[in-house]
Every structure is written in C-alpha cells, then in structure tokens.
C-alpha cells in the first residue's frame, strides 16, 4: 500500500507556515553559531595562556556542557532562572544563550587543540624575531591554526543545527512545533499527515546539514595532503 495524503503539505498555507517555522529554527541556529564563533575563538586563545585559574575555568565550562545533556541545560535555564529571579524568559532567547555557551565551549576546545598542536619552534622562532604577543598570534599562530580547526568547526556547526530541533521542548514555535500544529489540524481527515509532515521536516534537516558535513570532509582531505 502506497501512502497517500501528500496533499496535506500543499493545501492552504501549510508550506508557508512550515517555512516560517524553519526561519525561526534557522535564526536560532545562525545567531548561536555566530556568537559561539566569536566567543569560542576568545576562549580558545585564553586557554592556551599559562594561567592556572583561566585554564581551570575553561576546563570546567567545557566539562559542564559535555557531561550534562543540552536538553537538561535548556530546562535549567528556561524553568530554573525564571523561578529564581521571578522574570519571564523568551524560549528563543534561552535557546540562543544555551547553544552559544555550549558552542563556545566546544569551539574553544577545537581552537585550543589547533593552537597547541602547532610545533613549539613556531612560537620560539617568532619570539626570537622579536614579535610581540599579538603579532605572534596574528601573523604566526592563527593563520596556521585555521586549517586545523575549520573542518572541526564546521562539524560543530552541523551538530548545532541538528540540536536546534530541541527548542520545541521550551515552547518555541519552530519548524517542529508548526509541523505538530499542521498534523493536529488535519489528522482526522488525513491520517497520513504525520508521515508526510515529519518526513518533510526530516528531509529539510538533511538538506541543511548534509552540505555542511560534505564541506567539512572536503576541506579535511584537501588540507591534509
């Protein structure tokens, strides 16, 4: 039996509404990736400095996000902070804040790994030439580290896009929520609605993530040899 009822996707304003939901999802993903790129570069640089306290804070930040699932973090911030401070928080704001802090921790680790994997003589030669601290990073270390960190950073971006699907749990009207509304409205007349709507969202996420991971793999092989 072939599934029918694909009309559910084309009738009325369903496609427009799903596109609107996708825009919310993409907005959260893009803002989080942008913020965590800036923050992650800074954290990565700071974690290479020989300061004990700074290193400990960086390690703690990373471990907190590595051990506790992101969904739990969304719950802590979305339910916990309003309860503590007696304010209301918008789900989108919470999502961007949590994803940015998580992405910054992970990217910070990638940047730190790339910088510390450079041969020591690069730093020593730079210093011997009399380069200042900033010149050393700006002209010697960062340009070389970029190749080692970009593929990992793109893979992280793919993971962040996938994780945006969780924002439906904290009441954001993202593409998943809109999909659920479409299904609820038409489930009595079109029993196959959930198959088609979730199928479409599945394909949409794949179309967002697949080019990113291909690009990362391409850069990895290109820069390896």
């Amino acid at each position, binding site marked *: 039996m072939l599934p029918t009822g694909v009309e559910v996707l084309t009738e009325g304003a369903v496609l427009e509404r799903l596109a609107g939901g996708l825009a919310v999802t993409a907005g959260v993903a893009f803002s989080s990736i942008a913020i965590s790129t800036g923050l992650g570069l800074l954290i990565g640089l700071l974690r290479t400095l020989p300061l004990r306290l700074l290193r400990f804070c960086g390690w703690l930040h990373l471990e907190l996000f590595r051990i506790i*699932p992101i969904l739990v973090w969304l719950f802590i911030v979305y339910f916990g902070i309003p309860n503590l401070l007696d304010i209301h928080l918008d789900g989108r704001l919470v999502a961007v804040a949590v994803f940015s802090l998580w992405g910054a921790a992970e990217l910070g680790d990638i940047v730190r790994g790339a910088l510390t994997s450079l041969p020591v003589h690069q730093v020593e030669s730079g210093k011997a030439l009399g380069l200042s601290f900033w010149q050393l990073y700006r002209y010697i270390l960062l340009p070389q580290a970029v190749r080692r960190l970009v593929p990992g950073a793109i893979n992280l971006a793919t993971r962040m896009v996938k994780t945006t*699907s969780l924002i439906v749990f904290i009441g954001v009207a993202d593409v998943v929520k809109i999909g659920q509304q479409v299904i609820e409205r038409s489930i009595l007349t079109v029993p196959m609605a959930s198959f088609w709507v979730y199928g479409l969202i599945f394909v949409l996420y794949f179309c967002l993530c697949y080019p990113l991971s291909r690009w990362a793999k391409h850069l990895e092989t290109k820069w390896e040899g």
Partner: protein
Amino acid sequence: MEWNGAFVAKVLPLYAKAFWLTLELAVWGIALSLIIGLVCSLIQYYRVRGLQQVTAIYVEVSRNTPLLIQLFFLYYGFTKLGIHWSEETCAIVGLAFLGGSYMAESFRAGLDAVSQAQLESGLSIGLSRWQLVLYVILPQAFAVTLPGLGANAIFLLKETSIVGAIAIPDLMHVTQDLIGMYYQTFELLALLVGAYLIMLLPVSAALRWLERRVRYAAYGR
C-alpha cells in the same frame, strides 16, 4: 529558596524508576548500535558490492538528521504505514539508527589504522580470511577504536534525554510532568542534574582511564 526535603523524598522513587528506564534504553541502544556499526564498517572495509552504497547512504542520513525528528518519524509516521511498535522499542530503534553510523565511523578509523603489512604477513603465514579478521585485524583495530566507541556511548547516553518526546517516562519527561504539577522547580531540576551526573560521571571517568591505557598501548608512555 528553601530545599523541600519532604517533597524530594516523595518524588525520589519516581526519579529512581526513570533513571533505570533511561539506563536500560541507553544500554540496548548502545549494544545494537555497536552491532550495526561493526557490520557497516566491515561492509565498507571489504567494499561489498551493492551493500557498500546502502551503508554509505545510511551513514549520511543518520548523521545529518536530528534524533528528535528520527523518533517522531519512526513513532508517528511509521505507525501510519501499518508498523506498530511500543514507545520503548521505537526509542531503542531510534537510538540504534543514530548510534550505528557513529559507531561505524569509529570502527572504520580503527580498521584503517591496521597497516597493510599486517594483512600481508597474516596471509603469507597461511591464515584464512576469517582468521585474519578475528586474530589480526579486529584485535588491533579494537584498541584504536575504543576511545571513539566510548565517546559515542556517552553521546548516546546523553541523547536518551530526548526519548521523553514520544511519551516515555524517562528523566526529562518525569521532570517536565512534575514541574507542571507542583512548581517545585528548584528541587526537580536539581534531581534531574543529579541523576544525569550519577549516570555520566563514572562513564566519563572510565573513558578517560581507557584513553590513557590505549595511548600507553600505542606509544608506550
């Protein structure tokens, strides 16, 4: 804010139940994804014609879509095709579908690390193909693969936090329900975090120990 001990004592059994359920789903998911991953990586390693393309597509689809959407599609979409499964089965299938591709990539990295000379030496002393796989390739690949497999296991353990979405009374689901009923947000969130820490800290510590061991085995330091 005051810690409501009586309330915590009241909900603690619910959390204990959810804890074991979450762990059970994770263990099944991890075990199945190990099998799927090993089979897929061997198919890719030996370039089995026909199957190789299928596994390549599977790995890309599984890695580039979120678990939540995979679960929704399996649970709400597939039932419409006449496939009926319980929430728990669905969650385990979802976790195995997601984890299988991650395990496959880790296994493949290990298989690729076994040098050509090892294979040729094995063949030249007259080992059969299966003996070669069992006694030469897998033991060496396994050592390289272990940290990756451990990291994937932690990843899957954390991903189980999503299965509450298909009406499984796991830790997240129980927390969400109880917050809605009692508004004891602080205690409930603390219990939630505590439960995940109890589950994940030992695994993460074991993984770190394992990584050190493997590095020692590989480089002798």
